[in-house]
Every structure is written in structure tokens, then in C-alpha cells.
């Protein structure tokens, strides 16, 4: 278990570092770090995996194997409208589980999900899916990720 806490600590430090270095609370840097990480990481994670048939199969991989490797759990729900919109729901998102639930803490939630938005976008981008990923936190520690595939 000890090695798992390291990732949490590293992530917390990255968040602090990114937000300290700019005053406008800009989450773009954090998202970009996630993007480059995801882009490189997916190459390694898909090494033993057979070729993906379509978009949905890729999404399933993200929700199961990818999530499992990074967050040590699978997502709780994946929904799609079959028109390029996917909603990934995680009821106990790893980076939010250590924050006490409350309305005051809720305003700090975005900075803990920005990295993951980038991570997912980067991974999908390297797999050939151009997307926009946004996150929604209504109550800690649950989190919803909206993945919108840009098909053009």
C-alpha cells in the first residue's frame, strides 16, 4: 500500500506547484501535464492489449484497465448517447476521497480533477480519438467526467 500513497502525494504537490506559480488559478497547466502524461502512458499500457475495434471498445478500456491501473478501481458507470458523448461516473474518485465532504470544500474540487481530465484526453488523443474532457463534482468524493468526441 505504501507505494500508492506516493502517487497521491505527487499529485497533490503538482496541484500546489501549478497553482502557486500562477495567480489566476489557471488549471490549463495542470490539464496539460495530464495530457502529456496520458499521451505517453497509454503507449505503455496498451502494449499487451489487442487492437481496439471501435470507439466504444477504447472507452471501455479507459474505464476498466486504464482506471484500474491509475486509480486502483474501475469506474462505477459508463453511459453514452452513441453520438460521441460519454459520461464516466466514479462514486469514489481517488483524488477526492481524502477531502472531507462539504460545500466549502466543493469549491476546491476542480483543481483535483483537472489532471485527470488531461490524462484521459491525452490517452484518447494518442489512440486516435480527438476529444474534449470536462469534469463535474456535485458531492465529494463522487465525480463525473464528460467526454465529448470531436469527429472532424
Amino acid at each position, binding site marked *: 500500500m505504501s507505494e500508492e500513497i506516493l502517487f497521491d502525494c505527487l499529485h497533490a504537490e503538482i496541484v500546489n506547484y501549478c497553482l502557486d506559480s500562477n495567480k489566476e488559478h489557471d488549471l490549463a497547466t495542470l490539464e496539460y501535464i495530464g495530457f*502529456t502524461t496520458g*499521451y*505517453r*502512458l*497509454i*503507449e*505503455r499500457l*496498451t*502494449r499487451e*492489449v*489487442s*487492437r*481496439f*475495434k471501435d470507439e466504444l471498445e477504447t472507452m471501455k478500456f479507459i474505464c476498466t484497465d486504464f482506471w484500474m491501473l491509475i486509480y486502483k478501481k474501475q469506474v462505477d458507470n459508463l453511459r453514452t448517447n452513441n453520438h460521441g458523448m460519454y459520461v464516466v461516473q466514479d462514486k469514489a474518485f481517488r483524488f477526492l476521497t481524502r477531502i472531507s465532504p462539504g460545500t466549502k470544500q466543493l469549491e476546491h474540487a476542480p483543481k483535483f480533477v483537472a489532471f485527470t481530465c488531461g490524462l484521459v484526453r491525452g490517452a484518447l488523443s*494518442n*489512440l*486516435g480519438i480527438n476529444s474534449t474532457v470536462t469534469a463535474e463534482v456535485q458531492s465529494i468524493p463522487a465525480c463525473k467526467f464528460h467526454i465529448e468526441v470531436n469527429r472532424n
Partner: protein
Amino acid sequence: MAFCIAVIGKDNAPLYLTTSDMEQELELQYHVNAALDVVEEKCLIGKGAPESKELYLGLLYSTENHKIYGFVTNTRVKFIVVIDSSNVALRENEVRAIFRNLHLLYTDAICNPFYIPGESLTSKKFDRAVQKLMSGTA
């Protein structure tokens, strides 16, 4: 044991190419470029077919002196290996092993934060390891 090892990016831009014999480099490059069409075909036709699920594509085509093998990663990066036709000792399993090792080396090179995705691979470590792989001493 291999004549030429090439890494081609997702947009078919060459990222890395090395040959064992400088004299033949141009000819080998030509073989690699020609192989890309076959790779594209293989990835397209077999959509949904079980054999297309594998990253290893097998023998792409052979000429009088060379055999050209291909491999495509999930991220559409292509690996092409050119092998001497007269070398009958080299089995399919060994070709697979070359690709597996090459993939390992490639993923390591990609994870280097100083490498910009899409640029050609200039890492010395990667180059040394591939040279070893090519001579069959890895």
C-alpha cells in the same frame, strides 16, 4: 540478423530508421516505404476479423533478397523489420521477439519527458539498444 529496423509515426512520417549496411540503405528505405501500403491494407481489410486484433502483422511481403515484417501498435505507430531471405534459421517466433523488444524500447523512449511526440527518435540509448537487437546480440 535483421537488415533494417524502422519506426514510422502515426502520420506515416519516419521516426527512426537504421540499417546494418550503409551501401544498401536507399534500397532498404524503399522497401520500408513500400511496406506501409501493405500495413494500411492489413489494418483496413481485417476489421473485426480475429487475426487483425493482434498487433503483430506478420510477413508483409518478400522480395528476392528480403523479407519484410510489420507491427502496428494501438497508437498507430508502425514498426518495420527487413530480414535476409536466405536466413532460414530465423523463425517466426524470433521475429515476434524482435518486435516485442522493439516495442518495449519504444515505450521507454516515449516516456522520456524530453522527447516530443511526433519528432524523430534521436535517443542514444534507444539507438544502442536497437543496434543490439539488429545484430541479434540483445
